[in-house]
């Protein structure tokens, strides 16, 4: 994990990505109880030259370091990592406001709690809705901030319910 994050920091330092942050279940784990997951979602701001968003430079750089793709992920130091470009204004804002955290001495970024909730609500699959509920129930949510984010991005503010 530490080695995986160090590789991601190196990609950013070299300008292969402009900025990255941990999202998905691995990010949710910063705020709530751990739940099982097998991959790490990394949201990235990519350098754009032609207006096209492509992950090819990331994959090329990682292949040169000996890391191989596996399905939709690329395995970095034992951890399957899925790169996801910032695909809409909500995700761009989440990346911009990502929190700096320390994982075993390695600095990294994680998407803010309220943005994670908004992004899960926006995606709206069953597992995303379950994550919204978990984050709302356990995650010490700043409801004013969440309402502001949802309002600006045209989303309904998720309600807080007790879950067994």
């Amino acid at each position, binding site marked *: 994990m530490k080695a995986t994050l160090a590789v991601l920091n190196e990609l950013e330092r070299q300008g292969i990505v402009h900025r990255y942050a941990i999202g998905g279940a691995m990010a949710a784990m910063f705020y*709530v109880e751990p739940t*099982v997951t097998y991959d790490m979602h990394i949201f990235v701001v990519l350098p754009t030259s032609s207006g096209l968003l492509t992950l090819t430079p990331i994959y090329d750089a990682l292949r040169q370091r000996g890391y191989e793709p596996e399905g939709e992920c690329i395995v970095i130091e034992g*951890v399957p990592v899925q790169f996801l470009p910032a695909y809409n204004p909500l995700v761009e804002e989440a990346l911009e406001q990502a*929190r700096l955290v320390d994982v075993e001495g390695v600095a990294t970024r994680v998407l803010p709690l309220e943005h994670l909730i908004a992004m899960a609500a926006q995606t709206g699959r069953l597992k995303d809705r379950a994550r919204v509920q978990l984050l709302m129930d356990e995650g010490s949510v700043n409801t004013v*901030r969440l309402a502001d984010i949802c309002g600006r991005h045209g989303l309904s503010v998720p309600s807080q319910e007790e879950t067994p």
Partner: protein
Amino acid sequence: MTELPAAMQEALAAKQRRRRALAALPYADKLRILLRLQQVRDAIGETRGATARAWPIDVTTLFPSGMASLQEDAPAPPPDLVPPEPPREGTPPTDCHSHA
């Protein structure tokens, strides 16, 4: 809605307390739990022929600095790598470059 019996309410409240205690753990400890959850799920999956997917790393690989989160006398991380208190509203993010 029908009110639950007191014993059931207490059981649910205890479950909630457990969840909140787990949520409050350091991230490194949560990663240890995640690895164990992956192994448990794999063990179940293998009984019906599913491929194992747990990360091929163990606790010592996860915490090569000597399982710092498990040792009281473990060295603290360098001060410039310690993030500030969890930022709330209006706190600007700090750039990762200067810390990585």
